[in-house]
């Protein structure tokens, strides 16, 4: 059970959160302008790295705010959390 540091509420149990998949996948500006392949890429394709991964979490059982976290998928260590809309921090 991870202890996830909500940027607002502080560390809370993983069970209070919902996972939202890869971060920084923006809804396309003009979906109608995309080819079927480009649209399918938005809909269905996500990265799956071993190591650092920027992903979305929502503190659903708490303040209900979405935020981003950089988590190491191999160790589960969360290196940074940052609010929606903020750029991904550089992890040394």
């Amino acid at each position, binding site marked *: 059970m*991870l202890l996830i540091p909500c940027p607002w509420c502080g560390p809370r149990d993983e069970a209070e959160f919902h996972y939202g998949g890869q971060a920084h996948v923006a*809804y396309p500006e003009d979906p*109608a302008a*995309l080819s*079927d392949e480009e649209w399918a890429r938005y809909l269905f394709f996500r990265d799956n790295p071993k190591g650092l991964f920027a992903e*979305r979490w*929502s503190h659903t059982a708490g303040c209900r705010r*979405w935020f981003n976290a950089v988590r190491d998928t191999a*160790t589960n260590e969360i290196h940074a959390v940052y609010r929606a*809309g903020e750029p991904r921090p550089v992890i040394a």
Partner: protein
Amino acid sequence: MSERSERTGGAAVQPYRREGATGKTLRFRFDGREYAGLEGDTLASALLANGVRAVASSIKLGRPRGVYAAGSEEPNALVQIEEPFPEPMLTATTVELYDGLVATGLPGQGRLADRPDPARYDAVHAHCDVLVVGAGPAGIAAAGVAARAGARVILADERPEPGGSLLGTAETLDGAPGREWAAGEAAALAALPEVRVLRRTTVLGHYDDNYVIAVERRTNHLGAQAPADVARERVWRIRARRVVLATGGHERFVAFAGNDLPGVMLAGAARTYANHYRVLPGSRAVVFTTNDSAYAAALDLARAGVEIAAIADVRHAPGETWVARCAERGIEVLTGHVVTAVKGEGEVSSVEVAPRPEAQGSGGQAREIPADLLLVSGGWTPVVHLFSQAGGTLRYDEELGAFTPGETRQAVEAAGFARGVRTLRECLEDGAEAGRRALAGAGLTAPPEIDVPAAEEEPAAAPAEHVWLVESGDYGTHFVDLQRDVTVAEVLRATGAGLSSVEHVKRYTTAGTAHDQGKTSGLLTGGVVAHALGVDVAELGTTTFRAPYTPVSFAALAGRDRGPLHDPVRVTALHEWHVARGALFENVGQWKRPWYYPQQGEGPGEDMEAAVLRECRAAREDVAAMDASTLGKIDVVGPDAAVLLDRLYTNMMSTLKVGSIRYGVMCRPDGMVFDDGTVIRLADDRFLVTTTTGNAAAVLDWMEEWLQTEWPDLRVHCTSVTEQWATVALVGPRSREVLARLAPGLAVDNDSFPFMTWRDAEVAGIEARVCRISFSGELAYEINVSSWYGLALWEAVMASGEVTPYGTETMHVLRAEKGFPIVGQDTDGTVTPQDLGMEWIVSKKKADFVGKRSFARADTSRPDRKHLVGLLPEDPGVLLPEGAHLVDTSALPEPPVPTLGFVTSSYRSAALGRTFALALVSGGRERIGERLYAPVGADLVPVTVTSHVLYDPEGARRDG
């Protein structure tokens, strides 16, 4: 010579009980025989005190097995508790004896109780600065340092009393028995306000971020005397800032011929039985060892009255002090010797020892020594299970011949023997230092000076020699895993088959997979594999350590989450009325909704079919009411509220007039239907959105997700008001007149209050919002009031006696007759609005909305997509089962049979006078009029495909 008690007195005779043992006598029964033991015994020590050697039999080979260890690492002595309540697969070494215990030995597998466990089990969350696992010398020292500095400390130990290794070794601290020091320290710590000392508590698992699961056995040891309202076992869910693992070590044995015969026992375990339990595990013993530790055991047993016939030491140079002490007591030490055979019928009667074949010039001969006990020590293995579970690496300690903790990213460290620290004095110091580091890690200040009690001086240790097996021509009874009956022969078969990884050998042989999870056998198996392959144990590594550390009962894991508390039951404000009226309930997500209301009266109760037909007729021909409070409700407020709804619904919401209502569908970006409901415009900048019962939270989350992550510029706020409102649906041609009576101030005629509009009104004296919407096709109203007044409103509606209450089954029939789909029943996440025959709800005018782009994908316009259609069984009495598949052939072809689709809803219709169904059928709208077949059991039921709208397709009934 022997201290053995010669007292007599029927079942109270305990021939192997040491003299001077005190405590209350307890009666118990094992394998059908009456015995007596003493308070403080385990079942194992009590059996040994009574001379019971064969306790269980092995799972595959049926060989007799005896007590091998004195703790939770026991590989052999599996028992079934029969009374007071059946409990399978416990180790006799961990069952505390109580009066009236009835148990039987097991052949590897137990039996579950045939009745529900009446005991209470619960769980609790706990937080601490420092969790110390293990209340041996290192653990107590660590906890003491942390606790006295004011830290919040939890000290957990699996045994009934603190002390760890001190209990078995009887070493002294500050000149007094170590056991007394441990008890005193534990009591002093427990008295501190921020400290919790958990006895009988096994830490089972160590997870991310120092989340640790433990099980406390609180009343198990009380047997039938356990109070019913005290939880028998408690799961502790501990979040610790720092963890100190002072888990000590397990002694391992050596693989030699006949090492499973009852009477063969770990040397340290025998020492514990003699010192702690005051029981002699035998009369005359041979000791077989690879290291110095067995000498201390042999000497303690000799002092207790066990004749030590000889010590066979694989080494040529044992510790000199130990050899000298043995000489003082006249104990023969055979260096460079191994045990080559163990003889006896069902239990040890003699032991054959011989010089090691490779030992040059030892000059000894093979000898058969009469003995009823063979004590074995193959060295000690630090208990690294939790450290490894926590993600820590392990490294091989050559001197110890075992793996010890390496690196970890978690705030956890091992202390004492768990990290290979050898002597008692060093373990105490190491524990104290670990406590000091844990304090610092938790941001607290450690005291400058730390006192640890003085331990006895220990003889200088001679190096152990890591011998895993005694070489032989026949490895058929050289056991490496006693519980799984795995021998060296089987390990060699595995390596001979080309397996070179311990993980593969484990799976091939099952070694290490039993209840003991290889506590005594894991490293031994690795050693034998290394021996066979000619590689280093260090290179081979270990198999993965997984939770739980020891077996845990499902009852404990379930805790209070069973029966009515298994999952929340959500109820509406009207629930008590439904219960009183005798409604049957349907689970809709966590909600309990009235399913139907059997007619009350004389004779047998009405069945569901009759009740639903009656309720349907009332709704279609008269007036009926349903509790619709469970629908999700979201208040959407802000200048951009209409923009948000336009983007999330497929149809246009911004054009909705204040005072009006519109039905809408939401899709996921892939174009598949996600939810549906009505949207009520309360003001220019305010809407009330309703969702399906099951999706209320999901839709609110959906809105928040888009607002927070994609469209933070939109000025909209969403608030759940699902339970703020109670909702009563009033349905049927006479609903208008009933409403008019309840709300005399409301103009209810069709022109004043048209379809898909809402009005504020006082209904039955309660402020209400009345919506003219219909989920049945009939004239209908939904009356919303504060849920505090929900029951009052419902009672007012029912007061006249004219209104028939109806449940979800009738609601389903009514809506299905009209072809209204239920999201989640008639859809499954692969269905578009077009598939449902709802092209009309997909706006062509809006530039974009969530899902729109996907409607231009080739996949969403395939002609063979499944469409929602109606089905009429040719026999109007046949009710198709929901989920039935559909084919277009009157005889089934050879499998695999291609399916055209499946039934999603199926009912008997009062209005149609027959059965009908809805189904998702490939190219369904093109098949209207066709005959298809539903395989049901052995039959193929012929059905005709129809429009999904089967009742009042013109919509003539909605205005009454």
